Structures are given as structure tokens and as C-alpha cells.
């Protein structure tokens, strides 16, 4: 848990709290989210019942550009891209097809993409943004907290911002108590919602 500066699980039942600390850790680790969460406070009171998670996110990594995953070699009338990381290959090809048309984009093998008869400069190609990892990050975050939260707590109020997020869940209709708890828990971390 070194990646998180502040990580607390507060629960009215001591043993239950310890288990939920382990569950939270496991789920965040499985989804590779520990690197993006800066502070996290989880509060559970099974008597009410309510589950509250509030947290601060780290600055999300910047856009992925062509230069991050490929080496661009300009040649006479064409440009050869040597792919080093296939993760974002599919969105990159899609963007190339949209911009240059399929006639100008060729992929002779898995790690090579050749652009022919295009007007863009190699620098321009290198700078093209092909993916935004933060989109997937929010999806993962939403999924992770639904996993961590006890399953029966199906009435939820979730709020994911650029830097902060809050998650309230209960079996019963949510009242103002939930919102005041969010404020309270943010204050414990020295933050405001």
C-alpha cells in the first residue's frame, strides 16, 4: 500500500473493518488502481447500514501519443512505424483510417504500420493523440468500488470528479446522513469535498 499516502478503513466492527481493508486492497491491486489513488478513506456502519468511500486521485497520466508506442521513420513517399507496444495499436489504426483513409494505411505485419502518400510530417504523426487512459481509469474505479462495497448495498450515489471521488451505498433510501458523512470523511483526510 505504499503508493497511497493515506488509506484508512473505519468500521463500527473491528474485525469486519480489517477484512474490508484487505478486500479494498485486493480489489484496487487487481485493477491496478493503487497507482492513481492518492488518499482513500472508507467508512462502513452495518447497523445503519451504510458504506462510504471518499478519495483523492493523483494527476491522471497524460494522453498516449504515437511517439509513445511507435518509432516513426520517414522515407521517400511513405512513413514506416515500428510498433513497440501493441496495447494501443487498434485505436491508433482507427485514427489513421479516419484521417488518411484505408488506402493509405498498410500493416504488413504485427509490428509494422506503413503510411503511404500522406501529407503530414513525421513530427505531426508523432504528436497525434491516440488514447486517453483516464477514460478506462474511471470505468475501472466505478467497477472497483461496486466490487468492494457489500453486495446488498444497492442504493448508490457515486460522484467521480477529476481529482476527488465519493461513493455512498446503502440498502435503504439514502438520506442527508450520507452526504454529511462524505464531508466528515473528507475532513479527516484534510480535504474538502
Amino acid at each position: 500500500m505504499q503508493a497511497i499516502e493515506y488509506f484508512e478503513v473505519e468500521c463500527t466492527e473491528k474485525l469486519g473493518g480489517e477484512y474490508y481493508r484487505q478486500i479494498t486492497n485486493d480489489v484496487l491491486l487487481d485493477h491496478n488502481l493503487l497507482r492513481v489513488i492518492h488518499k482513500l478513506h472508507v467508512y462502513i456502519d452495518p447497523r445503519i447500514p451504510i458504506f462510504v468511500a471518499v478519495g483523492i486521485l493523483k494527476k491522471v497520466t497524460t494522453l498516449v501519443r504515437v511517439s509513445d508506442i511507435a518509432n516513426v521513420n520517414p522515407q521517400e513517399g511513405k512513413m514506416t512505424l515500428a510498433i513497440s507496444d501493441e496495447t494501443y495499436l487498434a485505436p491508433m489504426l482507427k485514427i489513421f483510417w479516419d484521417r488518411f483513409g484505408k488506402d493509405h494505411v498498410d500493416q504488413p505485419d504485427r509490428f509494422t504500420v506503413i503510411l503511404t502518400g500522406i501529407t503530414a510530417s513525421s513530427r505531426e504523426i508523432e504528436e497525434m493523440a491516440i488514447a486517453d487512459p483516464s477514460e478506462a481509469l474511471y470505468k475501472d474505479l466505478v467497477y472497483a468500488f461496486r466490487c468492494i462495497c457489500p453486495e446488498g448495498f444497492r442504493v448508490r450515489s457515486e460522484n467521480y470528479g477529476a481529482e476527488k471521488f465519493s461513493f455512498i451505498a446503502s440498502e435503504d433510501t439514502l438520506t442527508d446522513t450520507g452526504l454529511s458523512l462524505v464531508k466528515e470523511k473528507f475532513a479527516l483526510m484534510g480535504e474538502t469535498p
Partner: protein
Amino acid sequence: MILVPITYKGGIYRHNEIIDLIEDLGGYIVQKHMIAQEVVLQCFVPKDDVELIRSIGKPLAGEVIDSPLVGTEIAVVSMSLEIHHLPHPSCDIAEYVRRIGAKSNMVSLARGPGKRIAGINDEERDVINEHDIAVYLLGNFETCIEHKMPLLLRGVEVPVVLCGGPEKETLKRIVEPAVDGYVGNVGRFMHRTKESEELTKLDEIVAEITRVLEKRREELAKDPLSVSPARLMVIIREQVPAILAVTSPTPLTVQMSGLRVKLPYDTYADVLRRVEIEDGIKIGDVAEIEPSRMRDYIILRVKPFSETNTVI
């Protein structure tokens, strides 16, 4: 003749000799698995002959292990089939008891999770009651367990072993009505059980199940069954050829006091009733044949001696 449950593990080479030996000694093979070059036989054998099987199996690299759960069908009651409870811990536990001979089925409740909203319906209750024992896997909070257990136990007549996050003593204190076995510190978790500490916990669950089933066996011994379910299995296999065409892994599932026959009730109930066991005694005379709540299977409950006045 007292039959004891064992597992024989050995090579495929000459394993037929072991099968013949067990059958000649008057034992029954409940399940047979062929895995690559290995054969695993789960069987009931006469208590005095275990050493004989062990010594004959030795040159064939065979191993004989005591498996108290052979011939039992266990319901692992999971609160739901969501990612919250599967595959850990529900599958881990279901798989672990399977390894030592039990036939485990996972029963998931439609409205199992939660505290106030938890409940059990008649179908779930009936399916649980068709097993020898139910292992309830609950969550981590004692407040929720205390609140929902009376509801989840409503109408359940089979012995229950309860696993939950709180300590064993706490579970004993909060669960009303009391159940037959408790295993503490096994609540909801989201990782695979592979640490030695966690495997010890699984062993503890098995020990608790075994203890409860032993108690049940003792109770059954006081009023013995009219016929051994394992024997019925062999007879049905010989006399009802349709069972051989069933592709399920265990077309005939042996239970402690009954048998699950995976054939359609409407077509085969009467056929089964008329099957002769010995000296004109038919299955219908010594067992109740009822439709199972699990698909369209047949559940066969062997009557005790006190009801039939016969033991065969």
C-alpha cells in the same frame, strides 16, 4: 459388514484389478475419475479389507486415503453468484470439499446478500433440503449475520455449518436458532486461498463438516437404512440402462440416506419403483421416490428399518 469411505489413487495400468477386488470384497465404487495417467476411485469398502486393498495396490503405485466425505452431497450456499462471492471464497470451498470425495453443489440465493433485504425462497429451501449438509458462506459483519440468519434458516432441515467473518465464539453467540457447526474468520474475501494459513482454514471447514456428518451417521446407525444407497446405485446402473446414457459427471449421486437419480421423474419414477433389489423386494418398498427440485431429476430417500422392517 461395516463399509468405510476411502479414495484410491493410482496409475491406470492394471487398475481394473483394483476395481474387481473392491467389488469382490462387497464394496461399491461411487465415482471413478480418469485423469491423464491417473485413476481416482471413490468407494465404500469393508472396514477389515482396507489394508488388503492397500497392500494389493502398493505394487501398482496405488494409494489408499481415508475420505470421510465420500458418498455425501454437500450444498455450498453462497449468498449470490456475483463477483463479490465468486470465485472466492465460494468456489474455493466447493472445490476443496470435492477433492476429498464429497459431491458439492453450489446453491446461490436469489436474494441472499444484504441485511434487511436478504431472504430465501421455497425452491432454494427445498434444494438445500435435498442435500446431506448445507455449508452457509456468509459475510464479514456480525450485525448482518445476526439479522439475516433466522430468515435464511427458515425451513432448512438438514444440518448446517456456518462460515462467517466474525470469530467462532461470536458466531455461536449471535446465530439464532443455533446451527450444527461454526467456522469463524472465513467471511468474504477477494483473493485466492493459497497461503498456508488460508489452507488451514479450509481444512478447518472440512473438519467441521466431517464432525457434523459423523454425528449424523451415528444417528442413522441407531435406526439403520433398509438398503445402502451405494448398493441401490449399483442395482439401478445394472437394471436401468438409460442411466448409462446420461452425460452428467455423476448420473447417480450417492447421499448418506438417499440417492439422486439424474433421469426425468415423469418417465422413470415408476420404472425405478419396480426395480427388484433382492427376493422380490422392490426399490419402491424400501425407498420414497420423489421429484427433485433440481431440474427434473428424481430424489430417492431410503426408508429406515423402523418403517420397513427389512434390511437387505
